[in-house]
């Protein structure tokens, strides 16, 4: 009911005011809500993009950290803001796609309550084992897991994270079952992998590539569709034998549902300009990000495909809460 009223109000607004808004937006500072504490990659992305967007738009862009519950607290906060383009969310795979299929108990809908501005970047993960492990390739893992279901362990930073989903997709595509060992953060999982308590992990590229360089971890395959520049020579899952496999974690800018399309376009223009700067390219290369910069319509279609993909994985693995 609330949504219907909101819908009518928004429809009325978009009918009466579109031209005026498109001309004058933005008239005051814009806030990008980061649904995590400062210091993470989402925070970095929001601040760097925000700086450049402020120049293009001629208004300050303020970053506000509202961490909690895997990004859902911040996402919920943004759904309650006015859909005028002044309050935006730097959303992630978990807060804006996986949680839609994993949970029924969220007070917002990750798909219906947002209008995406742009999927800004994506980053593949990498399946790593200890460097003295017997597993030399993805095929070794599949062979072992096929004979010993629920034995090969993988650590994740928690249920429903993109690392967890990547591993469940691996099981689905290879027809095996791995043993999921959830941690309360990726650092804890990495510690147990280095200490030999668990067999493997679908890890963040930047962090694990440091350990690969130091010779403590061995990469088996990246989850993307092409070779990654921080891990040269490491095959993709498709090259390693799982033809249909692709999993990314991504980050994107979202506005509350009902934001006028002109405003979305203005914001998207500023994002595109930002992504073309050398400074941001350098930051992304350092972090191991792949630049996406999808337009609003493409972003919406991309999210729908993500929700569909992870929905299949969640159903197959029986993870629905």
């Amino acid at each position, binding site marked *: 009911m609330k949504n219907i009223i909101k819908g009518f109000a928004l429809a009325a607004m978009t009918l009466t005011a579109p031209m005026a808004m498109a001309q004058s937006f933005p008239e005051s500072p814009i806030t990008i809500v980061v649904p995590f*504490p400062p*210091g993470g990659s989402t925070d970095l992305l929001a601040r760097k993009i925000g700086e450049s967007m402020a120049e293009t738009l001629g208004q300050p862009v303020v970053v506000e950290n509202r961490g*909690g519950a895997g990004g859902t607290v911040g996402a919920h906060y943004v759904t309650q803001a006015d859909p005028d383009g002044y309050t935006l969310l730097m959303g992630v795979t978990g807060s804006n796609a996986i949680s839609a299929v994993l949970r029924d108990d969220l*007070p917002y809908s990750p798909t219906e309550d947002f209008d995406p501005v742009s999927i800004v970047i994506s980053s593949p993960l990498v399946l790593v084992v200890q460097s003295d492990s017997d597993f030399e390739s993805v095929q070794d893992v599949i062979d072992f897991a096929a004979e010993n279901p629920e034995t090969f362990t993988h650590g994740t930073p928690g249920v429903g994270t993109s690392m967890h989903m990547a591993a469940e997709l691996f099981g689905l595509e290879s027809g095996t079952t791995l043993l999921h060992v959830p*941690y309360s953060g990726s650092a804890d999982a990495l*510690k147990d992998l280095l200490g030999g308590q668990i067999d493997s992990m679908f890890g963040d590229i930047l962090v694990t590539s440091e350990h690969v360089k130091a010779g403590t971890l061995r990469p088996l395959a990246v989850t993307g569709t092409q070779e990654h520049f921080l891990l040269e020579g490491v095959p993709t899952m498709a090259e390693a034998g799982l033809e249909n496999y692709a999993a990314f974690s991504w980050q994107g800018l979202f506005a509350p549902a009902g934001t006028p399309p002109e405003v979305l376009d203005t914001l998207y223009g500023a994002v595109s300009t930002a992504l073309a700067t050398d400074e941001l390219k350098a930051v992304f290369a350092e972090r191991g990000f792949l630049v996406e910069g999808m337009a609003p319509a493409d972003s919406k279609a991309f999210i729908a495909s993500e929700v569909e993909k992870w929905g299949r994985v969640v159903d197959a693995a029986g993870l629905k809460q």
Partner: protein
Amino acid sequence: MEILQGLGLGLQTALGPSALLFCFIGVTVGTIVGVLPGVGALAAISLALPLTYYIDPTDALIMLAGIFYGAQYGGSTASILLNLPGTATAAITCLDGHPLAKQGKAPLALFVTAINSFIGSSIAIVLLMFFAPLVARVALNFGSAEYFAVMLLGLVAASTLTVGSPFKALAMVAFGIALGLVGTDVNTGQFRYDFGLLPLTDGFSLVAVAMGLFGVAEIIANIGQPPGTLHKLGRVRFKDMLPDRQQWREIWPPTLRGSAIGSFVGALPGTGPGIASLMSYAAEKRISRNPEKFGNGALEGLSAPEAANNASVQAAFIPTLSLGIPGDAVVAVLMGAMMLHGISPGPNLINDQPTMFWGLIMSFWVGNLILLVLNIPLIGLWVKLLSIPYHVLYPCIFVFICLGVYSADNSTFDIFVVLAFGVVGYGMRRFGFPATPVLLGFILGPLLEEHFRRAMLLARGDPLVFLERPISAAFLAVSALLLASAFWPRGRKGKAEEAADSGLDP
């Protein structure tokens, strides 16, 4: 040889003018946020982090780290003087620090904490300098079974933490564990006891619980009370601060033990200074010949946890700098700061960024020396704060508590949490239920559960795993011995202690 070179390089970096300046700013800010009740290192570092995007990465880290360990110095000040912990981890300092102040020994207590903090930090920094890779490798051998055993030992040792009825204390540990259950279940991802409130799916924040139970409750308890004896404390002379020969002897051994426990706990990723100070306090009380002194102004009960929390904070840099795995939540934010500057903390850090690595370590010495020099003259000033009338002082503190709790996550919900726990804490006091065991259960309970379930998962449900792994078995054996000794407590010292014990039971 390599280490000597590193030390030289580090000193050069840390004594450079900009590094010195940022170190000074960091530790000063740290001291201030430590003293202010509610505003802790985590909130301060989160706020300061975006500012450091614009300065040199090494200077940025030196400053942020300074806030972190500086806050450990300041945290005990309010605990001692006002019975209000300045940081969540300084709650344990209230137990013996405040009684000392009530006996007119506030300057002494503050001096002892400054010295102990320095000693605890120094010992951990030495470990960090010379044995970091070795300590990190030992820490890696700790799997979930070992963590469970260590936490269990902590819980058993701490079960007699406070004076008064053991049943009430036990009930409060259970209450704390129950509070710790609120949030997302790590194993299944299910929300527990969230009552449909999204902010509760992360559980209660430690700062809000601690500040409510200790801080807000203390403020409520003081409404309408006349200013106490502390009010009349006059000018502080240096003579009042110095411990005498007998007191030095009481301080030394607990300080060293506290430093050892703190370094050990700090080097284990996923723990923190709160656990370090709780465990060292419990250990001191356990081995003391006069456990009845604890809670009534025992210098041992003040020295051990103070040394432990500082040691733990410095030792938390061991896994961070040598493995790229943060030792606790605050260091995790610091690691984020490194990554923002394009430095990936990991096993290559010491080779890739020797200037930063050694510069940061040497800045710890510089920072701790500044803190020592800074804190001793400040004692006079802090004591003077007590002459501010309560009706002015407490509302100010109350505002700071709310600010601090809010700034940690920009969450108004946490302000209501701290208020609710203030009321609960006041009620507990009225009926003689101690608050420290709640904190103990709240901190250790979730860790116990998480590691127990993970150990069982990895062992495919075989409980013998805890006995088959030697480190875990050893800790369990010590816990069992401690439990057993609780049934023969009177044998060694005879009736005198028994009389003293029963005298304290209300």
